[in-house]
């Protein structure tokens, strides 16, 4: 028998200090946070829908058909048809793509920009921090939707512009969260060690501090995703968001739908349900992730 190094395989001692596998972590998360798991499942369904929209849709989401105007839900049109005879189900399926892309893109853009601002502001400190904080106060002082409204009006309706309009109000919120986390990390000994080694400030900030803010960052992103989807819906509803002919959930609810709502309630019911489920999913997931990843932020 080959000799083994001492201290290994002592009978009865726990064998491994290895990290639990991904599946174990997932199973534990589902058991401890059943609501979070439901949220995660909802988000997966929506992601799946968005990716395979072309396969899942039964009709062309843009094609109009006067003969099918305001068709009732049934075997022909599962969730009915709108006033132009467009299939609601197919439009909702394709709308998942638009809503998710706009939601994710604006959340990421806002969180990354805000994150970098928060990182530098927290790391540099002093006057820079003070001035940055005041500027963030100004941006945060206006209601999210009002700021996005003015932004999207200023930029004009197009998908990239809507993404920018929604991301701007997210910046101050992200900056605040990341800054708070940087302030505590900055004082840690390993950062001091890095400084003692003579590393450049930018390198310390981005290589050594930034990775440790990933927990709050993920929590922030999931929390903002829901509100980004809601703001997109509201903007599109008002005609300042996603332009025609893209099927967007908010757009589907807009004035033309409201006019026919009493004759054809499915025009209003289903797109709104889709929005609510998507936001509900990201809220549930966000809450559970916050409790798991960032116990300091634990709330209700």
């Amino acid at each position, binding site marked *: 028998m080959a000799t083994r190094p001492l201290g290994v395989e002592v009978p009865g001692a726990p064998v491994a200090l290895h990290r639990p596998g991904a599946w174990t972590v997932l199973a534990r998360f589902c058991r401890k946070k059943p609501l979070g798991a439901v949220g995660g499942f909802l988000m997966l369904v929506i992601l799946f829908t968005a990716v395979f929209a072309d396969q899942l849709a039964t009709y062309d989401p843009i094609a109009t058909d006067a003969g099918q105007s305001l068709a009732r839900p049934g075997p022909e049109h599962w969730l009915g048809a709108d006033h132009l005879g467009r299939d609601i189900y197919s439009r909702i399926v394709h709308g998942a793509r638009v809503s998710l892309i706009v939601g994710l893109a604006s959340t990421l853009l806002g969180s990354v920009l805000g994150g970098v601002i928060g990182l530098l502001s927290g790391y540099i400190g002093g006057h820079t921090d003070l001035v940055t904080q005041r500027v963030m106060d100004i*941006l945060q*002082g206006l209601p999210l939707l009002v700021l996005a409204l003015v932004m999207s009006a200023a930029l004009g309706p197009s998908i990239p512009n809507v993404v920018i309009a929604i991301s701007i109000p997210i910046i101050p919120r992200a900056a605040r969260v990341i800054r708070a986390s940087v302030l505590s990390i900055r004082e840690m000994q390993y950062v001091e060690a890095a400084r003692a080694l003579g590393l450049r400030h930018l390198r310390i900030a981005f290589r050594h501090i930034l990775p440790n803010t990933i927990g709050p960052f993920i929590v922030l992103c999931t929390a903002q995703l829901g509100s980004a989807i809601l703001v997109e819906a509201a903007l599109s509803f008002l005609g*300042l968001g996603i332009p025609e002919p893209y099927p967007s959930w908010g757009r589907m*609810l807009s004035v033309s739908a409201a006019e026919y709502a009493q004759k054809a309630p499915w025009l209003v*019911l289903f797109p709104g349900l889709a929005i*609510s489920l998507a936001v509900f999913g990201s809220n549930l997931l966000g809450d559970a992730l916050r409790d798991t990843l960032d116990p300091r932020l634990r709330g209700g």
Partner: protein
Amino acid sequence: MKAYIAQRLGIGLLTLLGMSVVIFVLLRLAPGDIVDILFSTGGYVNPVERQAIERELGLDRPVWVQYVEWLRQIVTGDLGKSYRYDLPAWEIIRPLIPVTLELAALSLVVAVALGVPLGVISAVRQDTALDYALRVFSLAGLSMPSFWLGMVIILTLVAWFGWIPPVTYVSPSQNLWLHVVQFSLPALAVGYRSSALIMRITRSSLLEVMREDYIRTARAKGQSGRVVIWRHALKNAILPVVTVIGIEFAFLIGGLVVTETVFNLPGLARFLVEAILWRDYPIVQNLVMFIAIVVIVSNLVVDMLYGFLDPRVRYGH
């Protein structure tokens, strides 16, 4: 106390100044101005006529002059002229304010009346099925677009009772009952959403307070659970709740933007959307500025309220 208020007012004014820059710059980024839009419906415009209109509206002057002019107007209380209606902006805005304030106040009442008791119940019954159900209920409120909820409420009324809410604004002097009904529907939709936040804060804040020694003492004295919670615990738990209520009041206006449109109520928020679509700069600028002022004032009021609610908070330095 006086020094504190002065300091807060100073910061508030600086923030407002910053906001005015942001608002002004954003609106000037917009492609196409009012002249383009006014004439896109009219077809051909000769350039001379166009210049005359631009001069009349002050659009031919340098941007910074326009900005300084706007600030001067705000300070002197003259809010400029609406491009589109050719009326003083203040005359247009003034009748809209009571509608929005009434709606915001009603929504807040709904939010508090729903949020605080549910938060208390949820905290007292922590980790029971009821607690879970209430938390899901509140999260659902946060997840539904309030304008959609408003549409669903109208549809339900039509489908179940065959009753259609008034489609145009009913003033309280016309028909008080109808007016109240007309306002309570959107207030319900918007208030439900805001109640979610209030409920969550009430719950977590109460849970924290209930772990304190004096609560155990009160219980040990044999006081009933109800008295302990409503009289002893809630008093101390209410402070963070007040903060959220203050923040919510300002942000309710954001929620009203779409809801007023759905319910066709002639308020500030609905008019803001119309003015944005028309690029009616003076109206948009002044409306957004008004919202900014409401936000800052309500934050200030919340800070002041602390002193009354909690004598421990002193306004020294």
